[in-house]
């Protein structure tokens, strides 16, 4: 029965082709552990999305209630401290993983022709991951969050010419307050996730289109080993 359902869907959607392209594609010989950081980053992204949805159900983005709502979540809601913990540690590990991913791509020269756009989209994704960290850090609205974000946004304020404009737009006012908090919450839960999702789709499309790069230690044998898409 399972196959007939799969067949029914495949005939109407072509989902099987997508599945083949993503999970049954040919990988060059010699690919190793170093090539797993992109997928690891992807996993953490999904983890952040799922735990973030639950956090959003209990979070109240006002200076009066933000901290209390998070304390309520971690002390009064079943599994609350675990879900928050997953999101907290997931955030740090995502920055580490995305950095490792970029370093590996750089070290192995995987950004070279024809994968330059994969790299550029990756750089944008790196910026978004850092943006997630920066905007999420403010949300608990405790002393550390408040002053770290004061300092962080002040950095933007020192940019020549546009500094003050940037500072005011980032904060939504001259000081960090109620307007900044709702703004950061929107950056963190609406703006950045939608951008990230779109760019990840493009990124993965390009990865599948070009196939995974051949590791440098096999470059002499490249003609024989260049990944081709063959039926699995």
């Amino acid at each position: 029965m399972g196959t007939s359902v799969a067949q029914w869907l495949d005939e109407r959607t072509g989902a099987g082709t997508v599945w083949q392209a993503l999970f049954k594609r040919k990988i060059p010989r010699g690919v190793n552990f170093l090539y797993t950081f992109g997928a690891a980053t992807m996993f953490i992204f999904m983890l952040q999305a799922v735990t973030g949805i639950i956090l959003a159900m209990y979070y109240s983005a006002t200076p009066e209630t933000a901290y209390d709502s998070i304390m309520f979540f971690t002390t009064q809601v079943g599994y609350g401290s675990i879900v928050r913990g997953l999101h907290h540690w997931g955030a740090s590990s995502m920055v580490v993983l995305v950095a490792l991913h970029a370093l590996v791509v750089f070290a192995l020269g995987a950004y070279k022709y024809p994968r330059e756009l994969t790299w550029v989209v990756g750089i944008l994704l790196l910026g978004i991951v850092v943006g997630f960290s920066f905007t999420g850090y403010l949300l608990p609205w405790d002393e550390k969050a408040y002053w770290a974000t004061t300092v962080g946004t002040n950095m933007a304020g020192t940019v020549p010419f546009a500094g003050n404009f940037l500072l005011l737009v980032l904060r939504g006012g001259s000081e960090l307050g109620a307007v900044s908090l709702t703004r950061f919450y929107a950056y963190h839960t609406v703006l950045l996730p939608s951008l990230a999702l779109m760019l990840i789709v493009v990124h993965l499309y390009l990865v599948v289109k070009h196939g995974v790069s051949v590791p440098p230690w096999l470059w002499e044998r490249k003609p024989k080993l260049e990944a081709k898409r063959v039926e699995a």
Partner: protein
Amino acid sequence: MKQNTSGQGVTRRHFLGYVTAALGAFVATVVAVPVVGAFVSPALKKKGSGQWISLGAIDKFTRKEPKMVGITVVKQDGWVEARQPRVVWVVAEDNNKFRVYNAQCTHLGCVADWDPQDRTWKSPCHGGVFAFEDGRVLAGPPPRGLDSLEYKIEGGELVVNYQDFRLGIEEKTAL
């Protein structure tokens, strides 16, 4: 890698596929338990208990007509301490006895009103009617009579143990 074409046994490719799927299912479960747990957590909360609230001096209540008293209950509403308005009906009886009812109609929660002509309580919403003598249902969709509340007399004041109950069901169960 040699492909197994004999149709017997499991190829390395299939074996690794199963292992990957099993590991994936394991990780998904580990994530799903706390996530689903936190999502449904409100449904697993312990039932609320009542809170004692004074309705004022006992001598303002009469035997003939029920008296409506508006109260304010202080509820922990998530991370906010919320003050919520509630209404009770009080009827005095002999020997410093009283009957105190939660005014919410047991059908879906409209506040039942006193009709002095009929001498019944009537729900303004779907035709629920409750008897003066004991709050039982006389007509309409309510599944049980008005919910009576515990009370005590303290320093000449009537103090009620106010509580909300589940609505729309036959049993009187604390919310």
